[in-house]
């Protein structure tokens, strides 16, 4: 591991005051409550002012990209959950869409599956923003907002649980559509969420948006200009908070997002408060999308009619020999996309998530590359906190809304 100098770097003698000062090195993390996981930042301080901040990452590097080279395409799906685990369902859908593009079967996916995926994707976005805002507030000392946010998250967990049986790590859709039809009470649960959630959102809004302390702690803090944000490759609220209206859902629509009516919220100041406002408004827009989705959820098949890709129905594997063999081959060898490579981007809650898959014609990916938005977004941290106070580092990390599972992979 890299050795960090714990001894003071340089000493200055101020002749006017007669005081000798030194730059102090402070090690923050990797086990620190406000680093949202295992981020480590080495801070060089002049009094309380940050002279230099150096992030160190990799404390959660598990080798997902390498592991995926040894398993079939379907088996990679559970690993994608464990990258951005605050919005697993978004990672899952992003991966599924990439494999579907690699197979060239996007047009065969039934509308019912696509609409359900849009609804779940937006639920995932709300889920992630709730933690983003809740923990950002918690780090800055506002505990109640965190509790309200987590209360709502439990409601989303309930919906996910009825759909796929898991609360957090969903591994839900499959290549070619949904593994099972949506449960009967799905629509009712989503409608109930649509009814209840605006109330909580208003509560969080009234707790924070015009809260004097919150504004003092976030306004003008951790600013980044639009040029710098683009240059660094920031995406998501971190980019839109600086006034750049880039959203993959509009820029390169997938899952039929072009048919939904929603706005891309943009704020211009580029500070922590702008990013907070973007997240709040994005949740409202997500509600609009979910409402349109649930109103137009079509009946019909939930998985594509592609015997080479989609598993046969469970009932048939028990009763028909051909289905059993097909099931066995699909599980054991996996489907084999033609040799080629694709990249597919989705607008994850934290920014652009893209998968880059290379197939060599076998059942296992030759290379799977994940571009996690947090990885790139975190690069902005040293610029954001330079010359600011130590306490602002916490606000900056919180407002970037990083998740270490995705940074380290």
């Amino acid at each position, binding site marked *: 591991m890299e050795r960090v100098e714990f001894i003071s770097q340089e000493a200055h003698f101020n002749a006017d005051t007669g005081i000798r000062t030194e730059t102090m090195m402070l090690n923050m993390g990797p086990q620190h409550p406000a680093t949202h996981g295992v981020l480590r930042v080495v801070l060089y301080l002049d009094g309380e002012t940050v002279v230099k901040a150096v992030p160190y990452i990799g404390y959660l590097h598990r080798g997902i990209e390498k592991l995926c080279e040894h398993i079939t395409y379907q088996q990679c799906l559970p690993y994608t959950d464990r990258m951005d685990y605050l919005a697993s369902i978004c990672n899952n859908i992003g991966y599924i869409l990439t494999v579907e593009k690699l197979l060239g079967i996007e047009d065969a996916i039934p509308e019912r599956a696509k609409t359900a995926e849009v609804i779940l994707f937006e639920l995932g976005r709300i889920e992630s923003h709730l933690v983003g805002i809740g923990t950002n507030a918690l780090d800055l000392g506002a505990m109640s907002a965190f509790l309200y946010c987590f209360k709502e998250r439990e409601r989303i967990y309930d919906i996910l649980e009825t759909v796929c049986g898991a609360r957090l790590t969903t591994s839900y859709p499959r290549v070619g559509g949904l593994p099972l039809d949506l449960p009967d009470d799905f629509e009712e649960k989503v409608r109930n969420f649509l009814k209840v959630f605006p109330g909580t959102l208003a509560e969080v809004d009234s707790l924070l948006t015009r809260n004097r302390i919150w504004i003092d702690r976030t306004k003008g803090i951790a600013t980044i200009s639009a040029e710098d944000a683009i240059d660094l490759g920031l995406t998501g609220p971190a980019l839109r908070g600086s006034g750049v209206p880039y959203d993959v859902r509009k820029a*390169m629509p997938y899952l039929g997002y072009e048919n939904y009516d929603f706005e891309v919220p943009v704020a211009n100041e580029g500070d922590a408060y702008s990013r907070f406002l973007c997240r709040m408004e994005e949740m409202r827009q997500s509600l609009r999308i979910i409402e349109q989705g649930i109103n137009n959820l079509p009946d019909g098949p939930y998985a594509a009619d592609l015997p080479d890709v989609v598993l046969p129905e469970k009932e048939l594997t028990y009763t028909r020999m051909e289905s059993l063999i097909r099931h066995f081959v699909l599980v054991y060898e996996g489907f084999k996309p033609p040799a080629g*490579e694709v*990249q597919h981007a989705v607008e994850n809650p934290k920014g652009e998530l893209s998968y880059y898959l290379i197939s060599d014609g076998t059942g296992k990916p030759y290379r799977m590359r994940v*571009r996690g938005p947090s990885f790139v977004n975190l690069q902005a941290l040293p610029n954001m906190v330079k010359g600011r106070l130590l306490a602002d580092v916490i606000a900056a990390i919180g407002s970037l809304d990083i998740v270490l599972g995705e940074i380290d992979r």
Partner: protein
Amino acid sequence: MSSDFDSLIEAVNSAYPGAVKERIEYRGETTLIIDKDRISGVCRHLKASFGFTFLADLTAVDYLEIRTPRYEVVYHVHRFGPEIDENIRLRLKAEVEGDNPKIDSVTHIWSGADWLEREVYDMFGIVFTGHPDLRRILMPEDYEPFPLRKDFDVRDREASKRSFERALREGDN
């Protein structure tokens, strides 16, 4: 969109003769194979003259025993359109030889390439000349192998254990 790329390739080739070696179209995506020695110039040209201001991704692939040269460094560059739905994405590839792999850094063109290039160095051992701070990013500093190379076994934990034991012994985290 493809007609756009025709004029783009022409312009790049007239500025850097022979820089674009090949063009591949697959699943609606365009890939340009760029001469390795010109990658930095081509990228600067794409950013300055064609508005590819955003580096979406930078990674590498190891084609051990499949192709020579062994490595490919892959760039995904992006242009924001005047309208929110007029965006263009382009994939650039540069082939890098297996012995002593080296390629020019693009950090001076997109500063966001900094960590991405460090990750490629960490995982593949490809050296980016001109990178301001090229050292390991995900694996510990004293780790020797390059994990994403195809000749490295995914379950080989020996180097990690050595690094862990050294950290325990020296109390250095």
